[in-house]
């Protein structure tokens, strides 16, 4: 299957995965550290970044739905950061031209925390945040 796809020209792993995984960025503990690892300056607060399908309360921290849409022109990338997780950065998404600056995924949260949506647009960084409370339901047994 892989060989077939490659032969058909579908698969270009070297191109698609050209950027090496940014280990340093995924091992940071606060915003300043993360920005340094990502190579950016302090982000500006923005009202043009919107959370959608992101609940105020998550019944289980193992799966917290997060949707982020950026209305900032020339959005190049969107990142999800979770303040109180052991490592702050959860995911980054590069948005090529033609792709809507809107992503939705699910993340783990160890506890109630602020979630940051970090957007890079036209070389500048912007941020919005939202608190998500994590409850533990069930019998506890």
């Amino acid at each position: 299957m892989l060989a077939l796809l490659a032969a058909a020209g579908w698969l270009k792993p070297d191109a698609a995965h050209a950027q090496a995984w940014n280990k340093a960025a995924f091992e940071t503990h606060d915003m300043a550290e993360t920005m340094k690892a990502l190579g950016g300056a302090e982000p500006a607060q923005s009202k043009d970044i919107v959370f959608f399908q992101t609940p105020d309360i998550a019944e289980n921290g193992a799966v917290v739905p997060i949707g982020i849409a950026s209305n900032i022109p020339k959005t190049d990338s969107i990142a999800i950061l979770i303040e109180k997780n052991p490592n702050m950065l959860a995911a980054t998404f590069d948005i090529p031209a033609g792709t809507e600056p809107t992503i939705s995924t699910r993340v783990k949260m160890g506890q109630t925390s602020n979630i940051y949506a970090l957007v890079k647009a036209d070389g500048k960084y912007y941020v919005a945040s939202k608190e998500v409370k994590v409850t533990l339901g069930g019998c506890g047994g």
Partner: protein
Amino acid sequence: MPCAFAQSTVDEIAKYRAALQDGNPAELWEARGEALWKQKRGPKQVSFEQCDLGLGAGVVKGAYARLPRYFADADRVMDLETRLVWCMVKLQGYSEADALKNPFGSGNEKKSDMEALVAYVTSESRGAKMNVALSHPKEEQMYRLGEKMFYFRGGPHDFACATCHGEDGKRIRLQDLPNLTGTEGAQKAYTTWPAYRVSQGELRSFQWRLYDCFRQQRFPELIFASDASVALTMFLARNANGVAFDAPAIKR
């Protein structure tokens, strides 16, 4: 105002659950189960397409909504899992021990073929109206045994199924409890299993639901595909008659 707080908590958790509906990882189990269903397996190298789930050999569509039921070839009332085990032994040539092992999976290291098959078969009843018959005396008997089991109190905590699932509008901690003695509660609960449990990252079948309820009831271990498990399934499935089956679902 603790009450107002609780209400907004409940509303927000409802939003959380709604947000999870789009993209249920149970689909990964359904896809694997469909492949297993069609694959020639076991010492006899036969696929499940020869397996009769009650609507004829290989008919999957709508079959789960009519289970458990009496099967003349086995002279027994069977739920889905019991029937799959029967087909694995009689058709595919597995030993009973092999057919019964690993009913509940755990991660990629210990995937359960049974759970995947259950995910696939149940998904083929999505939208089918629950229609479990008590026309055969053994079906009637199984139902009454299930009812008996439902009210059976035992263990150090005196718990029965009915302890938590016998009244409307109750909850454990913040978790709502369906009243399984009423039609509405049984319908809502039974038609939403199996489910992908986000807390476990696993697809869980109704057999698992019963197994884990008894664990929390402080009972000994409920044996997979045992008579008591089939009887309780019969009791609850029958009580859920009349509404559309809607699983595999996704739950906390």
